[in-house]
């Protein structure tokens, strides 16, 4: 099928001025299309085209104008606010004596090793009331893992209102129990210390704390041989970790 067959009004420039009806047979598709053409149709279409172009131009100008109006109505306001975050810093220092150090002797049941420390909140934020103490032993053994009921290392903490007397391990003032003797095996997950107030920013201090390490247990050796499960002849290194939490969040309206 040629273009002339499909569009005879375009392909025949010498088309008659009177309307003609042309039947085109689409032999290849067996479909019949009937097209009616009038002489003034082309002019109409050209006019419509001009109108369409004019309409498009008008619409474009209108849209551009509207966009200009929109850009003109948007407004921006800015404000500045400076924010500084606080710090929470806990330090541990000796109170009297050497503080935490290695216990050079061989501990036996009933022995106690006392160290005296101060805990200071040196950050810019106050802490919440209370402290958490974790004691972990490496290597873990019967001294620290609770594998023998009632035996193993214990830890306790007591605060004195004044500095402790190092020579005797006594408090000349009043004492406050922060932690009653507790198996170290229970302290690996963290223990809450009692009677610890919130520590003020920068200057807050939990002073004159005696941390007591003890060894609990009753064991009998027979002809020089210790029981199969024993706390005898063991060594471990304990890591004491004190943790403070920040004060509760403050909501400020200004």
């Amino acid at each position: 099928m040629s273009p002339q067959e499909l569009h005879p009004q375009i392909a025949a420039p010498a088309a008659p001025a009177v309307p003609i009806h042309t039947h085109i047979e689409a032999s290849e598709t067996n479909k019949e299309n009937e097209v009616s053409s009038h002489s003034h149709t082309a002019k109409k279409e050209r006019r419509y085209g001009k109108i369409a172009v004019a309409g498009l131009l008008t619409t474009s100008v209108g849209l551009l104008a509207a966009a200009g109006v929109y850009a003109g109505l948007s407004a921006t306001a800015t404000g500045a606010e400076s924010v500084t975050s606080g710090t929470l810093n806990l330090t541990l220092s000796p109170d009297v004596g050497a503080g935490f150090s290695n216990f050079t002797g061989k501990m036996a049941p009933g022995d106690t090793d006392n160290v005296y420390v101060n805990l200071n909140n040196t950050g810019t934020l106050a802490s919440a009331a209370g402290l958490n103490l974790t004691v972990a032993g490496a290597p873990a053994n019967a001294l620290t893992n609770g594998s023998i009921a009632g035996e193993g290392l214990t830890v306790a903490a007591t605060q004195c209102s004044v500095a402790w007397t190092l020579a005797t391990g006594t408090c000349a003032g009043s004492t406050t129990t922060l932690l009653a003797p507790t198996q170290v095996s229970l302290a690996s997950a963290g223990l809450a210390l009692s009677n610890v107030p919130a520590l003020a920013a920068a200057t807050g201090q939990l002073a004159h704390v005696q941390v007591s390490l003890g060894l609990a247990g009753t064991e009998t050796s027979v002809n020089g041989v210790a029981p199969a499960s024993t706390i005898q002849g063991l060594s471990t290194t304990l890591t004491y970790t004190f943790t403070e939490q920040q004060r509760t969040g403050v909501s400020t309206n200004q």
Partner: protein
Amino acid sequence: MKCITRSTASRTAATAAVLLLGVATLAPIAGAAGLAGRASRTESVSTASWGATASVTSMNFNTNTAQTSNVTNTGTIPLTAQSYVVTVTRPFLFVPTFQVFECAVPWVGGTCSGGAGTQVGGTLDSGTTTTITTTTALAVGATEYLQIEPAGVFLFTTTVTISPEVTAPSQVRAAIKTNQ
């Protein structure tokens, strides 16, 4: 049988992904409850061992001749007392008795520096098991000398076993309180 269409599977996978994302996002938020300050220190500790070891733990008696056993503190801390579990067998005929004596020096010729030594416990009958205790202090590595003295008629062998026992904290040095 219910068929899972492709769109259902996609929807399920998308839902799971959203849930996982939500959990992964919430987990760190839950953990980050605020600031915490920490301070740590370490301390190394070692424990002692305690015990006393007898050089001879089983003695057979066929005559009235005394026998000795040396007991040494083989632990790492001083002892303030020791116990002995003494078992005496019962012979077929006759029932001899026994007494335990201790001496700070080795027994020579059945005597403790020319003396009789110090008796520990009472008289032990045949066919009994008795725990006797002495409050003799023994430094680490120190030895005390025991002599078991029989009395009676021996027609058959009688066996005496002696087993030293040390219990802490009651039989070791006094508790130490260290301030450092």
